[in-house]
């Protein structure tokens, strides 16, 4: 007999893999691809808030920034799609290094405000750099051929490519959390002075976590740019930073699967409610308030608590 503590994560793994594999059979593939991109984004964000205890209010900068860079190198420099999105992710990681180095000089609430403000600089850059197309966005990014022969204009080819990117990203995050590095991150989150007194250079750990999170957010952003063949200001706007926080909060900060669940719910909500116009924003805002007041653990966090499992 498997114990509940082992069975529950396995069940979630199976559920997630199963969904990813067969979703396009019954759902609009572009919609599922969007889900997967945001799920990856939320997981990357969660690496920071959930496993390092840092609230970044500027993650859209990495998501959006990478989308533009990937779009540009693919469209203008003719990079193949895979190389393009990797370039985007690397760019986001580098940007993360810069933003992170500045932001970790302050803590808590200040950290949040500083990342928000720095992300706003990135936003203005995106708005004003000539290659980004300003308000028009970077349009018509060709999907091209994966590895030279798989035509990504085929919806299913594109879908499984995105699914693979998502899974690779998700596994990497899973591994980071369960690595010696992840162990130190958790220690820092729980008791920073103590970690410091044990000889861990806390700032460097935080920075590396920030860079990883930024890079993975960039991976999500570049992939999304390829899916929609579009990089736009929305991707880099602060409201996007807020949305990814909501996804993570709703699903459960510091859980493995929470951000995926949260991203699915938020994206699906926006989709279903798109007909009611701006009331979506009200619903999203209301969800935020409800989450903060009523279940700070998030859906998966609450589930784990009900099942009395330490983490899911």
């Amino acid at each position, binding site marked *: 007999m498997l114990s509940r503590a082992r069975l529950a994560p396995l069940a979630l793994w199976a559920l997630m893999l199963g969904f990813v594999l067969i979703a396009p059979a019954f759902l609009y593939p*572009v919609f599922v691809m969007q889900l997967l991109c945001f799920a990856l984004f939320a997981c990357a964000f969660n690496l920071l808030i959930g496993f390092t205890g840092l609230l970044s209010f500027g993650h859209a900068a990495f998501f959006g920034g990478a989308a533009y860079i990937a779009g540009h190198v693919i469209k203008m420099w003719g990079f193949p799609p895979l190389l393009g999105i990797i370039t985007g992710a690397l760019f986001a990681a580098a940007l993360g290094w810069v933003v992170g180095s500045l932001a970790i000089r302050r803590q808590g609430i200040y950290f949040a405000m500083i990342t928000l403000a720095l992300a706003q600089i990135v936003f203005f850059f995106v708005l004003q750099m000539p290659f980004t197309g300003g308000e028009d966005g970077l349009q018509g990014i060709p999907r091209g051929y994966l590895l030279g022969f798989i035509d990504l204009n085929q919806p299913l080819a594109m879908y499984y490519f995105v699914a693979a990117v998502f899974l690779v990203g998700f596994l990497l995050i899973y591994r980071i959390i369960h690595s010696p590095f992840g162990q130190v991150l958790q220690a820092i989150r729980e008791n920073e002075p103590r970690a410091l007194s044990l000889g861990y250079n806390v700032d460097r750990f935080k920075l590396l976590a920030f860079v990883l999170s930024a890079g993975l957010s960039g991976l999500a952003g570049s992939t999304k740019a390829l899916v929609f063949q579009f990089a736009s200001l929305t991707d880099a706007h602060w409201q996007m930073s807020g949305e990814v926080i909501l996804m993570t909060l709703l699903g459960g900060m510091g859980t493995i699967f929470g951000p995926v669940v949260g991203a699915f719910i938020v994206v699906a909500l926006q989709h279903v409610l798109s007909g009611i116009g701006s009331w979506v924003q009200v619903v999203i805002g209301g969800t935020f308030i409800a989450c903060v007041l009523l279940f700070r653990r998030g859906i998966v966090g609450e589930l784990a608590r009900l099942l009395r499992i330490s983490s899911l």
Partner: protein
Amino acid sequence: ADGVSDDTVKIGVLGDMSGVYSTGFSGDGAVSAVKMAVEDFGGTVLGKPIEVISADHQNKADVASATARQWIDEDKVDMITDLTNSAVALAVQQLASEKKVITIATGAASSALTGESCTAYGIHYGYDTHALPVGTATAVVKNGGDSWYFITADYAFGHALEQNTGDVVKKLGGSVLGSSDVPLASTDFSSYLLQAQSSGAKVIGLANAGQDTVNSIKQAHEFGIVEGGQQLAGMLVLISDVKSLGTDVAKGLQFTTGWYWNSDDESKAWKERYEKYSNGAAPTFVHAADYSLTMAYLKAVEAAGTDDSDKVRAELGKMKIDDFFAKGGQIREDGLLVHDMYLLKVKDGGTDPWDVAEVARTIPGNEAYPALADSGCPLVK
């Protein structure tokens, strides 16, 4: 393939339903115009029902293209229209053409739609940034306003309008002293107006639209710029803008439009019908265009006997478009509808609250728009 795919003809109205262009250009007014046309047409074509769906693109090209993508992939939309906001129109036109779906942009103005970014299925109906300055800028320069400073909406439309207006000004021997790019939907234009003021230009050209235009004109008055001797030239002004400015602020303003309700009886009659249909809201020329193009599209479907995009597009090219909206209109290969334009001049109120202007000049289609030979469209080369 003959016949109607999926047994309906679906028209998608993709517009700005809540932003700066939701009044005047797009919004509910556009949806009403399309629906009214469908009803006038009889609600069916080739025996199949006509369905109209609409969505808000929030002036975001990515939202628009995601919506359009889903409309095409999932909802099997046959034609997408409105597309106010040039960035949106360019994105959707590109995407839709890849998927062989006809787009007919109205509210969007950028001449790039039928210029370098033209597509085989993209149509631009009503006006463009090339046609707008022909009337207004010419009139202003001829009146002595020969040095210009632009306040430009910082996206595809604004830049195109600035470019095209500048060309007209220069061709007539005027000069352009500079420009300020202003983000879409800004509320404070004062610092840009001051730049314009200190440039010493005789004319401040407003290469923007909708609420942006209204705000810039208002604030120019607030800072006493007009009293200071500089002239404002709105390159894209709607009669609804004139109304919200009030005739005392707007008096003497000249602007170019694709249609004016008070230009003839046919138009007047249509306006009255539209007002009834949409609970009293008066139409702008964009709404008239929306009606006209819907009619044209449905006629083309009927004539082609199918909603297949290639055949319908061919029919649209063959048709003469001659109704209350477009006089002597013709949709060219590059997708541009060439028709007469009007230079209007704001006057003191008449009997109708919407009677705010008089036609100063009718600009013949071939003067307002460049010849097909001069089109930047790669398809016609």
